[in-house]
């Protein structure tokens, strides 16, 4: 039975590790400025935890086999209540490992969440509702118009859905769309909002995720670094349509972005 345990535990360990190393399923390609740092932290954690995982599982299997009860031929058990030196060694080692990892990662976290967006960032307001994302650009005046919960009408399309108050002068040039366009290599300043329940704005390729919470307007920033189409998913249970609360972000060149926004402005007139 000890041998069977050895075989199965080692097999499970090596099969899982094989898929982790060969990685047919892996983080999607990173296309934002912060992706590299996050991925690096991920891989560091991954290698360290992988080593601990393999060592712990293999010694568990090994001990199960090696110290099985072999009847009378076996050496007597080692009567011991423990070893304080060993306890201290592995307490300190794991302490250093875990706290060290934490400190490494916290720098990236600080850059992600503590620093405000640059002044040159493109402002985009993201609004989540059951079960769609709407994106708003402030237009040439750089100011978002007022929205009013009383005016919200999801059945009447984008502007009405987020309750844009068209009597506000700042709202005149606001562009509201269902697909997000972003210029490449320029920081985006997101304002995340939700009108009904909590949603979570998740762009796997950009290593971006933040809950959109009713009652709060949360600011986040991200810099896309590659032109392309990327999927947006909702990552917080928001009701029966959670699985289809899906959107697209199209990262384009600055010229294409300017052209696109000008066309939207023209449509509004």
């Amino acid at each position: 039975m000890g041998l069977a345990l050895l075989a199965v535990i080692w097999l499970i360990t090596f099969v899982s590790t094989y898929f982790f190393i060969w990685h047919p399923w892996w983080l999607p390609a990173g296309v934002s400025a912060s992706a590299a740092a996050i991925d690096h932290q991920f891989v560091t954690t991954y290698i360290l935890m992988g080593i601990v995982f393999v060592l712990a599982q293999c010694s568990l299997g090994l001990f199960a086999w090696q110290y099985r009860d072999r009847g009378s031929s076996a050496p007597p058990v080692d009567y011991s209540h423990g070893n304080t030196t060993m306890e201290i060694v592995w307490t300190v080692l794991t302490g250093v490992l875990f706290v060290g990892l934490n400190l490494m990662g916290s720098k990236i976290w600080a850059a992600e969440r503590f620093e405000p967006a640059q002044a040159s960032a493109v402002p985009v307001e993201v609004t989540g509702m059951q079960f769609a994302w709407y994106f708003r650009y402030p237009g040439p005046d750089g100011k978002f118009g007022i929205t009013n919960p009383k005016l919200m009408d999801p059945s009447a399309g984008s502007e009405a859905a987020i309750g844009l108050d068209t009597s506000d002068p700042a709202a005149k040039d606001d562009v509201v769309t269902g697909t997000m366009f972003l210029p490449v290599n320029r920081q985006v300043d997101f304002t995340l909002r939700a009108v009904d329940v909590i949603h979570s704005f998740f762009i796997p390729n950009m290593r971006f995720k933040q809950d959109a919470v009713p009652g709060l307007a949360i600011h986040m920033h991200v810099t896309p670094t590659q032109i392309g189409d990327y999927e947006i998913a909702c990552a917080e249970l928001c009701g029966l349509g959670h699985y289809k609360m899906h959107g697209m972000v199209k990262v384009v060149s600055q010229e294409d972005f300017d052209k696109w926004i000008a066309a939207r402005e023209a449509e509004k007139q």
Partner: protein
Amino acid sequence: MDRRAGGGETIMATSEVVHAHAGPQGFIRKYIFSLDHKVIGIQYFFLALTAVWVGMFLSLLMRIHLIWPQVNLPIVGHIQPETYLSLLTMHGTIMVFFVLTTAPQGGFGNYFLPIQIGAPDMAFPVLNMLSFWTTFVAFVVMLAAFFVTGGAPLHGWTGYPPLSAVQSTGPGEGLGADLWITSIAIFCAASLMGALNFITTTLDLRAKGMTLMRMPLTVWSWFITAILGLLAFGVLLSAGILLLMDRNLGTSFFVPVIVVNGQLMGHKGGSPLLWQHLFWFFGHPEVYIAILPGMGVTSQILSTFARKPIFGYRAMVYAMLGIGFLGFMVWGHHMFMSGMSPYSAFAFSLLTMAIGVPSAIKTFNWLGTLYKGRIRFYTPMLFAVGFVSLFVSGGLSGPFLAQPTLDIPLHDTYFVVGHFHLIMGVAAIFGIFAATYYWFPKMFGRMMNEGLGKAHFWLTFIGTYAIFMPMHYLGMAGHPRRYSQLTEVAYLHNLIPLQTFMTYAAFITIGAQFIFVINLFWSMLKGPKAADNPWDATTVEWTTATPPPHDNFGGQTPVIHNGPYEYGVPGAARDFVMQTDPAVGAAH
């Protein structure tokens, strides 16, 4: 000086009476409204067994729906996306509250904590009975949510408002959600009664010589679990009351101005984050409530079957205390992406990583216990080794999720689902299985079948890895959790084969559980009679008759001379020295 004057109201003064009588004889007082902690423990065990089958059946329906969304099942019919969410809500709630909290603590803790410390019963037997029946009522109310208009709630076991706080956010958010939160509030009261009973019993009713540092690690784990329950469930009760008020009286604790389906709701000024704080203040200790008893049982069984003292008894105790203590300071790691202050995230992350240290100590000490032992592979030992393996696998994904930086890609994906299922789901369940196989002879007076037990172990061990390991791959690929269908998001299409594999693994694993149930009931009726100490173990429960008499020790109170795990003592007559045997020199 014994200053416990007047314990008269509780077990103390009645113990003399208990000695004189053999316990109640009528069926109702003996088996239904019994005050005997052993009967109550078995009642809890069967309640959890019922609940785990319900929960497992729900999970199977979910897995079937994910792979074959169009299939028409007998009785259940065609599963809608909203039904899927109801299934996952009820699966999570039933498993967490009525299985992982109920079986290890209410079941085995109730049965064995008093016996292991040499007490004739719990400190408050009536409260103990009330605690069980209140839990039972909570379970019935929970199940009732399936049968009301709109069905069971769809807000997940965490019940985040506004989804859970407003009736019009989805089907199932009507009466079903009210029953759900009511059931949880009732469960809080039941757990509170249980927790204060466990704590008082451990403080007051340890037999002469049973000092704190001679208590079996199982007793320590139930004791610490009870402290966590005492402090955590009170907060959940408050949160539940406030949620019920938001839902039915129009208050706005958790709800700001919101517009649902174009309808402006009457709420204003509340904050969804308040619920998350209150909920996770309970919710994170709850995770340890589920896993700590498993750790205790594993320690006990590893030592017994390796025929070796537990490695570093004191370190094990301090590690459990450390886990319990730190467990109250880390709730925010569930909220890194929630809009919580990013500064709090930094503190929560550091404290969460710190919890890895006592967890690692426990793992190393389990390995140290096996090292140079003489391992006997009976079924309980297999499950205990399986527990260690799963605890390592599930634990090591923790440091990923504890870092807010890595939570950005991983939060609310299948990575989290895999993590908590391995560690708090399956590892805890392995603890329950290990305890069942280990203590079954004492509880029912018969041995379980080893062959069926081993078959059950191998299928379950491999099966659960096959279900939950791939979830980590899904999570890394960005698969969000709680998606009822995989058709709407393009990058999920590549992941369907993995989901299919997991569904087949689930079929096999659930099939294996039939072996367990057959073994359980068959052995209860037909198993060979068990000796008083079939495993050559050392703790006090093995000194008494099998099954134990009404007051546990036939009118005697045992006297304790040794630590709990004296195996292979050099020079001793046999390879184990029981706690009630004359003292051995090396004992602490």
